[in-house]
């Protein structure tokens, strides 16, 4: 008998603490179609995730839900309920699986978590495959939730709402991060991004940590918008009037409430004034340069992507409104026909899915270290052009315009025309690249066994490394053109007058990227990330490197994304930034970083502190206010 294509699981469409209005009562339930996992064990524990519900502060555990129980199979899982911890388990599983599926579909291969880094008996680093991300739905009694890179786990908190939170929350009632779709998707994205780009946790410029946060926000926001249930009400309430599509923006800002980025997103997208009218934020080219904190900085990127989404949505629905209005485009007063609302919600949800896929796909086109927002724009444009050469619906134009309006420009490009944004091939052709491709095992795709995919990618990295180190295969000129230096072991060098030690080349990641374009073509590339680290005498370390995209069929490097660290200026800048931003106290007090550092916990804590410092009308705890919700 064939397997069912999906397991239907109920979730809250909105955080229940903002969903208790009578008006929204009927719409707060959504059903997610989660990939069918045959072997799903109680927990749920599946191929990718294990939900373990221990509550250390309460010193107890909650019994695991068995989603394969026949009673749950026939009615789409448990009904949404704050009072049943087993529903919480179901909801985090369904939401996190949905995020994983979005990643896998966009990237064309099964997703892997970052390996566990341990030390072998000889003191060398050993990486261990981690099959499942753990999710602890009730890990902390605090308004904080975070991805723990050390534990490969999501730690979600719950807390008592304070009197001041808002009139929507029962004062003294409990708020659960596990029941917020956005928080679970946000933290899962941190984990997925970490699995793809481990070096994106190293803050080498103001954009890097901001990117981690902003990207997680983008995924959470647009994954939320892919649920038509979440949009229908908003569209009916705006009466589809495109000049009022700000309700989507209000939803986005509300999402910011849930994430604790309230002040930042409000500034970047807009806010509801005292008289209940919506005041959109007007983007200026100064937005990008003037934001200094990671979360305000990140919100500029979120706002840019959101802006692009609105334009795409507008483009996709204009014809519907004309059809519905006999060509005038002016809607009559009163409620919209249900059919029109349905169609418009479907368009919005489709546009959200496209934006989501475009944003995720760009990850294969990013530099291996030290990413900036400008480079992310180039990655977006290149990735999308690869897949959809003919941009009939003007998606890319929308992205470029939205980024430009906020002052996000890539350095080193002459214009913001699509052609100049697209990455270039390496300056010298890699003549013998075909030889190495023959030795690689590149069948890592959507059907692969994940442990094998992990092991093959390690073997591929070793093969690629051997190839790069072989002068008969890669000439000195070709290697220099990639910005790399062939050395067998660490040796002292002077880079532009700065003395230090240069470490050998490291091949970080070798992964295939396969996509099926809308026109049916299959594009298959190999993504190779190579880095080299320089340790200047003055302290710290400076990484340089490149990402190569190699066409598997034609055996040719198509794109080359380079990060340089070859000038005294640049090295000093990277060193200075590290000194300015990294808290070095742990380095003094904890040898070998043997402490469980939780970088994301700290960022989230800082964000909260910011609101308090800025005098925002937001309590120190996570907020579930609702000043512009669909009523």
């Amino acid at each position, binding site marked *: 008998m064939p397997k069912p294509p999906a397991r239907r699981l109920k979730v809250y469409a909105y955080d229940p603490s903002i969903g208790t209005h009578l008006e929204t009562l009927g719409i707060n339930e959504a059903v997610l179609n989660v990939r069918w996992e045959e072997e799903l064990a109680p927990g749920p524990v599946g191929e990718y995730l294990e939900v373990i519900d221990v509550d250390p502060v309460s010193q107890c555990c909650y019994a695991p839900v068995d989603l394969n129980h026949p009673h749950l199979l026939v009615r789409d899982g448990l009904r949404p309920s704050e009072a049943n911890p087993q529903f919480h388990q179901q909801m985090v599983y369904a939401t996190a699986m949905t995020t994983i599926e979005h990643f896998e579909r966009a990237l064309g291969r099964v997703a892997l978590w970052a390996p566990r880094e341990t030390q072998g008996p000889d003191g060398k680093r050993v990486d261990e495959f981690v099959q499942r991300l753990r999710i602890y739905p009730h890990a902390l009694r605090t308004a904080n939730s975070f991805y723990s890179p050390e534990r490969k786990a999501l730690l979600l908190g719950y807390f008592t709402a304070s009197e001041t939170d808002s009139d929507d929350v029962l004062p003294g009632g409990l708020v659960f991060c596990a029941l917020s779709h956005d928080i679970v998707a946000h933290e899962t994205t941190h984990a997925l991004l970490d699995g793809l780009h481990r070096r994106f946790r190293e803050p080498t410029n103001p954009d890097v940590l901001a990117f981690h946060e902003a990207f997680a926000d983008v995924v959470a926001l647009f994954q939320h918008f892919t649920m038509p249930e979440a949009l229908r009400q908003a569209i009916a309430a705006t009466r589809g009037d495109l000049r009022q599509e700000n309700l989507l923006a209000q939803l986005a800002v509300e999402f910011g409430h849930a994430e604790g980025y309230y002040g930042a997103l409000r500034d970047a997208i807009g806010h509801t004034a005292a008289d209940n009218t919506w005041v959109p934020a007007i983007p200026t080219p100064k937005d990008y340069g003037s934001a200094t904190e990671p979360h305000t900085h990140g919100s500029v990127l979120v706002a840019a992507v959101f802006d692009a989404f609105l334009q795409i949505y507008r483009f996709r629905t204009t014809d519907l409104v004309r059809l519905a209005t006999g060509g005038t485009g002016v809607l009559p007063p009163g409620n919209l026909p249900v059919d029109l609302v349905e169609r418009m919600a479907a368009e919005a949800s489709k546009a959200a899915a496209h934006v989501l896929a475009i944003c995720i796909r760009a990850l294969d086109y990013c530099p291996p270290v030290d990413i900036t927002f400008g480079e992310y724009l180039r990655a977006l444009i290149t990735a999308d052009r690869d897949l959809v050469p003919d941009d009939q619906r003007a998606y890319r134009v929308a992205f470029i315009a939205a980024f430009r309006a906020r002052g996000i420009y890539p350095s080193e490009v002459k214009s913001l025309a699509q052609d100049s944004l697209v990455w270039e091939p390496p300056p010298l052709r890699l003549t013998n690249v075909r030889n190495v491709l023959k030795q690689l095992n590149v069948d890592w795709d959507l059907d692969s066994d994940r442990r094998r995919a992990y092991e093959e990618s390690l073997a591929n990295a070793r093969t690629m490394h051997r190839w790069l180190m072989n002068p008969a295969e890669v000439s000195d000129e070709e290697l220099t053109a990639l910005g790399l230096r062939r050395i067998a072991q660490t040796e002292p060098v002077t880079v532009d007058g700065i003395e230090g030690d240069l470490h050998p080349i490291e091949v970080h990641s070798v992964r295939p990227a396969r996509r099926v374009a809308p026109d049916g073509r299959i594009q298959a590339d190999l993504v190779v990330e190579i880095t080299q680290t320089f340790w200047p005498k003055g302290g710290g370390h400076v990484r340089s490197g490149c990402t190569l995209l190699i066409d598997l069929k034609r055996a040719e490097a198509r794109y080359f994304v380079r990060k340089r660290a070859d000038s005294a200026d640049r090295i000093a800048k990277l060193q200075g930034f590290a000194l300015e931003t990294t808290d070095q106290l742990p380095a003094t007090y904890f*040898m070998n970083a043997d402490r469980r550092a939780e970088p994301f916990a700290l960022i989230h804590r800082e964000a909260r502190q910011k609101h308090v410092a800025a005098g925002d009308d937001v309590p120190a705890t996570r907020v579930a206010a609702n000043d512009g919700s669909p009523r």
Partner: protein
Amino acid sequence: MNGEGAPAGFRARVRMYRHGLGDCLLVTLPRHDASPYFILIDCGVILGTANAANVMQGVLEDVLQTTGGKVDLLVATHEHWDHLSGFIQAPEAFARLAADAVWLAWTEDPDDELAQKLTVERHQHLDNLRLSSARMRLAGDEQGADVVGTLLEFFGAASGGTTNDALEAVRGKRDDPRYCKPGDPPMLLDAVGARLYVLGPPRDEALIKKTLPSTKAPETYGIAAEGFAAEVVPYLAGEVADSPFSSLYAIPNQVAQELDFLKHYWSDDASWRGIDDAWLGAAADLAMQLDSATNNTSLVIAIELADGDVLLFAADAQVGNWLSWQDLSWTIDDRTVTGPDLLKRTILYKVGHHGSHNATLRAKGLELMDGLRLAMIPVFHDMAVKKHWGNMPLPGLVDALSEKVQGAVLRSDEDAPLIPGVKVTANPLYFEVEL
């Protein structure tokens, strides 16, 4: 640079004891009649030092012998065990030491409002951190408990004497201790011809809590304290917090540990993913911040010799303390002396906080010290490693100092280098340089 022409044949002697990880410095300045003026700055060793009482007894006996039982000035820089322990570990020897004057930082002044606010806050945090450390141990998180525990050890053992007791012992020496503020006029030692300037601690809460060079994250202390208050403190009290769910769903841990599904969570090979102690994570952050903020209450003294050369005793001053010296200025007779000016004329520097990364400012510190000839680091690296503080001293800083003074860096845990033109007495108990 030796003091030819001076009646005693030298301008100053600085003795740095080599008793372990901790500060004890004895400065000798010759009076015009050649009799010595003694300044004892701190006398402590880190908790966990073997035979600490004997060690400190030995140090104080040497002080007694050298000074004839009386120092002219006794300075206790800040409330940390590795600077004060000797005052209560060798009570009998300390009782025999007379002091003509006692100096403490204004942050220890019981009549100063800001000082009291900081003290109360510190003690509250300490109590809660001690509880956190105990809870971590209870949760089986030895590592976390050690991290917090070793930081707490700067404030003395849980039983048998705290830094507060040691501070009281120093205070008890005189009924008129001076609480030094950076704005105070420098004290002229008439009979010596030297001046003592107080550079820190700054009278500014924000600067005291500023422990890192970063301009972007000046409120690290506040974030740590807030996280601790919200996430940890409410649940430190004895009883178990109520579960948010009906008892129908809750399985007590003792039962859960026997269940097939949950057994795995407590197994050894999965312990790296456990979260039993995760809610206490903010404790380690705060412990570090608190420790650094206390270092920042260091009383920093610059001794300006008659010829204008300066000896700088930075105690454990961190970034905020250093930064505050930039704005200091005194008018003496008809000349103006500023903080940066004193740094420029510094020839001997007692390196801050055992050579750690944030206790010697670069641009507004070391780089200003144009005349620097000698650096002294009281440190015991092997002990620091035992405490898991691998970067104490920070190799980069030692290199930078060494470059600046052409190798004239005295580390208490290493042999003394040859320093041309400076007489160095070296023995297992101390190094003494004579200028």
